């Protein structure tokens, strides 16, 4: 005869009661398993997608995503032929390398960015501030232009003018011919030695230019464009290192200053 059967009825009932009650509860909640697992999976998938889209929950805008992407993975400038406001053609990418060769100085990769600006040992240009614009723009390009003008002034004031160059590239090569760019530069007070206005030598290169800088250009139906903008920083080796928000040219300046 099993021992449990010999136990007082009270105890026996209590001994069975807990597991039975747990089992009953589990039975009653069994329907929850599938939905709650599914809910967890959904939340997991949403978090994963959100993390990818927002670059680890750091940004909510495309410009912010580009800033983080460039910070993580600097990339080479595209090989594009530009023409400046004096009608002279030049290459966007190897321009820095060519400048250095002309200066007769050995390439010093360590002096490429930040450290180079800080050392003061080399007078060769170590960085280029690039903005994209079109001269008939009445919106964002005015902000970028005034930002570049502010940077020109600050670079001059801080003795960095010789080592940091500025470049404004027009993405409207049809209208922004060299004479138009020259006028534009004069209006902005651009000092040609340090701040060049340029546009594409071949209009067909436009998609490559826009893709390289992740600029979206949509006709606004009034002869202008809806587009985004930023300040870009490229080093002497033609690497695109950083992008800065339009309202933060000061951050770019801070990165150029000796640390």
């Amino acid at each position, binding site marked *: 005869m099993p021992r449990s059967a010999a136990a007082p009825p009270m105890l026996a009932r209590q001994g069975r009661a807990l597991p039975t009650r747990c089992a009953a509860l589990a039975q009653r909640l069994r329907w929850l398993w599938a939905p709650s697992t599914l809910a967890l999976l959904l939340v997991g998938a*949403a978090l994963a*997608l959100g993390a990818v889209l927002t670059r680890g929950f750091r940004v*909510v805008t495309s410009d*912010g995503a580009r800033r983080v992407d460039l910070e993580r993975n600097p990339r080479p400038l595209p090989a594009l032929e530009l023409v400046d406001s004096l009608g002279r053609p030049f290459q966007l990418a190897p321009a820095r390398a060519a400048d250095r060769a002309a200066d007769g100085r050995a390439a010093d990769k360590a002096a490429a960015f930040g450290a180079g600006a800080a050392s003061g040992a080399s007078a060769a240009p170590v960085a280029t501030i690039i903005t994209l614009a079109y001269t008939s723009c009445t919106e964002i390009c005015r902000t970028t232009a005034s930002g570049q003008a502010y940077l020109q002034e600050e670079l001059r004031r801080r003795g960095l003018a010789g080592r940091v160059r500025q470049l404004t590239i027009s993405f409207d090569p049809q209208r922004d011919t060299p004479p138009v760019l020259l006028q534009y530069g004069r209006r902005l007070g651009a000092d040609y030695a340090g701040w060049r206005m340029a546009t594409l030598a071949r209009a067909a290169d436009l998609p490559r230019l826009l893709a390289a800088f992740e600029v979206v250009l949509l006709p606004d139906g009034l002869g202008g464009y809806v587009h985004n903008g930023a300040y870009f920083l490229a080093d002497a080796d033609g690497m695109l290192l950083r992008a800065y928000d*339009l309202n933060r040219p000061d951050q770019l300046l801070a990165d150029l200053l000796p640390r």
Partner: protein
Amino acid sequence: MKISLHPLFPGLLLVLLALARPWLDASMALHMVLELPLLAALGALAARAAVAGRRAAIARPYAAVMLLAAVLLISIWMLPLALDLAVVHAWVSVAKALAMLLAGALLWLAWRSAGLMLQAFLMLSWGWMNITAGILYQEAPAQLCSVYLSEQQWTAGAGLIALSGCALTLWLLDAMILPALRDPG
């Protein structure tokens, strides 16, 4: 509701909406306040046409999960980043349409069986999310979307606030105030 629709009706409306896409996508406000809700409404309409009277049987054990999925699907398109991608890349635009259609279908299927508590939770959190986003859009100092100028942000923000305000008011009337008036006991 006893209105019966031809099963192809939601599909026809979707084609019309697809044709209107260039116009809708051209404005941030129309994109967020008209296009996205219309897609969800079409999803709901399609679900209604597809399941007819079997809604309760389908949804009962999964109502909460379905609502959660709908909220997640809708929330993606609150990100300016996602709106940019949807305007620039055709395949993201298709994904957006599918996500909103699915969200609408899920909402319609799960709504009644979810019960008042879940409905209230969803309405209040969605309304709150929209109003917060609307205020943020209006106050944002910088351009949020690459494809929309910053002037459009104010209108889009106002539209989001108006949309969620109307939805919340209608829901409160339907779920809380009118039943209370009808049945004072």
